[in-house]
């Protein structure tokens, strides 16, 4: 516990009384929101984890999407199934770190259209990965159906705009 106190994480486990009405206010005032907002290592550590999870989820997704479109054709499609599993670990890291970052500024995020657009695109991106994963895992050596390629093409656009919106969230 002394270690946790020293790094500031102990603040996370102490409740803070709600000062603002509603769920978002409660979330902001919660121990988690307070910790991420004010403790020195809290916010940067969540930010760094969020960048790592992004690189894993979006990076692997983009490479797999390009493979579905026909690039890097020497890589057997079915072998990429395993990498979807790793991509979802990145997604999990970002769901958790993103929830913590959200709790620090819940009220302002919920009225920020850039943030809301990013969240919608991230959900769409996750849906494309959920559709492509079984399609890639069951792919034979023949060509993929056009609909699968269309989803991969859409996924690339979705991820690119999601990254840009995520970055712009810092400015609005």
């Amino acid at each position, binding site marked *: 516990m002394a270690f946790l106190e020293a790094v500031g994480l102990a603040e996370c486990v102490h409740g803070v009384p709600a000062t603002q009405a509603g769920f978002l206010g409660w979330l902001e005032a919660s121990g988690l929101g307070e910790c991420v907002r004010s403790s020195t290592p809290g916010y940067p550590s969540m930010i760094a984890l969020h960048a790592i999870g992004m690189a894993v989820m*979006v990076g692997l997704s983009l*490479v797999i999407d390009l493979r579905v479109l026909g690039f*890097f054709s020497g*890589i057997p499609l079915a072998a990429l199934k395993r*990498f979807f599993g790793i991509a979802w670990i990145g997604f999990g890291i970002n769901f958790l770190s993103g929830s913590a970052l959200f709790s620090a500024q819940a009220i302002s995020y919920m009225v920020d259209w850039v943030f809301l657009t990013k969240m919608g695109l991230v959900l769409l991106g996750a849906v494309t990965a959920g559709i492509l994963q079984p399609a890639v895992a069951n792919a034979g050596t023949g060509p993929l159906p056009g609909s699968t390629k269309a989803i991969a093409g859409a996924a690339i656009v979705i991820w690119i705009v999601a*990254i840009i919106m995520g970055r*712009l969230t810092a400015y609005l």
Partner: protein
Amino acid sequence: MDALMDWMLSTPINQLVIGYAWSWPTLESLHFLALCTLMGSLLIMDLRLIGLQRIIPLSAVHSLMPLAIGSFAINLISGLGFLFGDPNTYFQNYAFWVKMGFIVLAGINFLVYFTKVEPQILKLGPNDPTPGSAKVVGVLSLVFWFGVLSYGRLLPYLGTGGG
């Protein structure tokens, strides 16, 4: 170092980066997108070197190399944009130098891969186990590049003068 910073601040690149409201966020978006494609291609290449998914031929994994190098080039150029835009902040921040140190280590590791490891493994067929040297290079590559990513993202929060 002061002379270098003064020169950077006097260049037209500096004006381009800080003179327009959209320059910095555009460079950041490019830097983030290319870091994703760099790390995505590295994850597949390095995990295959370590031994994951041996059904992928090593020559096919190698086809990801242009994507990794192209992504790094985008990040080198956009990163230089940040540096010319605000050299004092970066040069005075120890996290920046740690990040540069990780990039140098990753570069040395790549040269070891390129000169020593790759000639051995490109002859291997699918399902052949990779030699120990390939596994070491693969692990070090992931450690160094995730180090680059982590210190890059922590940069505004560590050291002095960050914002």
